[in-house]
């Protein structure tokens, strides 16, 4: 294998890991600030200018904290669970193009770690493996709240996998490829080529499911503070808990990238303007995660299941069927 390719890949992996670990930290800062402003508070203000160094303070606190492994927990599983959450979140990023390809000193860089031909399938599959973090962590914790949270997590994630899969099926039928770069290039034409206009139902469904996949507020059942303390995170302390956190926020960023690329045109034609548009779209989706947290209440677990299986899934299937019929009519008409 080409040495340059290996070096390039390693550099890309390091860049993505460091950028998104830092972004996950700053995600907590943004969340605290945005939620505070929406609730007429100030949020963090003391550490650094505008509280910007709060992230560093939190990081130092988390890392230097005593790593407590409680009695009666299943030690190896308890220890490995947060690593699963964080690592799968970052593994999922391998197939996401974060930036259009560009040329540095005559060397063309593809800002995607692995442009596999089953890109989106890979992303969804690895994100689904992330379920094992909360599930194993909750089951190994020897704590009833954690166990409840693990059960809820398993139910919610597996149910909403169905929605993500089915809702993505319709746009994928139109594009004819699973690679996120192909999906992006399909919408090259600009604003009116976005898949969100031809597949609005799939867009909304995927968006709703993204909240369940990342465990964000309207569907924040896995760690619902007022019912089950911190859910699977109850028994964790220090950086192990911090890894859960990094995983959650990294997931939010990555699913925002996926939504922006699949439905809102991604980086468009690949120009610098298009790339910045992609960042703006991602920022909007990330902001929307925080926005809903300030505005909307949580639903009950049974309501969540009801919504998934009796409302969203039939709509998703109908959407697939209608899309299929329309594609069929179009191709037949073109014959």
């Amino acid at each position, binding site marked *: 294998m080409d040495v340059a390719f290996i070096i390039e890949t390693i550099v890309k992996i390091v860049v993505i890991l460091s950028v998104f670990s830092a972004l996950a930290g700053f995600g907590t800062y943004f969340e605290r600030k945005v939620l505070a402003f929406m609730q*007429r*508070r100030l949020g963090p203000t003391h550490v650094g200018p505008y509280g910007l160094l709060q992230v560093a303070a939190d990081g130092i606190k988390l890392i230097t904290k005593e790593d407590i492994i409680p009695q009666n927990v299943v030690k190896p599983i308890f220890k490995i669970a947060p690593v699963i959450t964080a690592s799968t979140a970052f593994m999922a990023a391998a197939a996401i193009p974060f930036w259009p390809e560009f040329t540095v000193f005559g060397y063309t860089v593809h800002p995607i770690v692995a442009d596999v031909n089953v890109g989106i399938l890979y992303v969804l599959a690895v994100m689904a493996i992330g379920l094992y973090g909360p599930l194993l962590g909750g089951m190994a914790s020897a704590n009833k709240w954690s166990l409840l949270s693990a059960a809820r997590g398993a139910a919610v994630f597996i149910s909403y996998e169905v929605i993500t899969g089915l809702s993505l099926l319709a746009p994928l039928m139109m594009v004819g490829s699973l690679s996120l770069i192909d999906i992006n290039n399909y919408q090259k034409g600009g604003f009116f080529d976005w898949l969100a206009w031809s597949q609005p139902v799939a867009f909304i469904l995927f968006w709703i499911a993204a909240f369940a996949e990342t465990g964000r507020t309207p569907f924040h059942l896995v760690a619902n503070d007022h019912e089950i303390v911190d859910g699977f995170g109850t028994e964790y302390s220090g950086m192990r808990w911090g890894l859960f956190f990094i995983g959650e926020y990294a997931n939010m960023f990555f699913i925002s990238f996926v939504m922006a690329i699949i439905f809102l045109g991604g980086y468009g034609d690949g120009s610098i303007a298009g790339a910045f548009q992609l960042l703006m779209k991602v920022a909007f989706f990330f902001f929307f995660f925080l926005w809903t947290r300030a505005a909307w209440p949580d639903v009950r677990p049974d309501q969540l299941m009801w919504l998934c299986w009796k409302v969203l899934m039939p709509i998703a299937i109908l959407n697939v069927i209608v899309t299929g019929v329309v594609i069929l009519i179009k191709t037949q008409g073109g014959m």
Partner: protein
Amino acid sequence: MHVEPFTDRNVSEQSAYYYVDIEEYPVTGWDKFKQVVKRSLKGELFIGLWIVMREMIKFDIHTVKYPMEKLPIGPRYRAVHKLLRLWESGFERCIGCGLCEKICISDCIRMDTRIDENSRKEVTEYSINLGRCIFCGYCAEVCPELAIVHGERYENASQQRAHFVIKDDMLTPLDLLVSGQQKDYPGFGSITPHEDERVAKTPLAY
């Protein structure tokens, strides 16, 4: 805002209180589905989003940055006690009558007195056990000389609570008195302003 609508506790059509109109809970699956569709499409969710966004844009922050900013407290707030001095002579107002010690319901005031060279009663020891004090204000109310009042010092974190209630700490220092910084009236236990106009005179005339 005036209190009238809130003091009327009778639920009637005229009053400010009314029963909230709650619709029947849906029973059948179809009704539940209709409710979800109605609630999803009615825009209630977007009203919520708009309201928090509006507050964020207005940026009308209500946080008080406490140690740097403090909210004003009422003039009759009952915080840690103060012993006041006479304005003219600078003597202690306390005459050692012992009424505060007597009335204190949590039995936290302790004082020692003696007759000094001028045959005046002098207070040698005066202390309040803040661990017991419930800040009821009886001591300030019963004091015939307005000597003990409640001050506005509510930040009493210390290694020893006793630091706040030894006599020397509560008593107005002489230099503050001379510079006119002894606040006389607002504390609890002192005479309210315009007392003469508010109190009806004893009708000796008839």
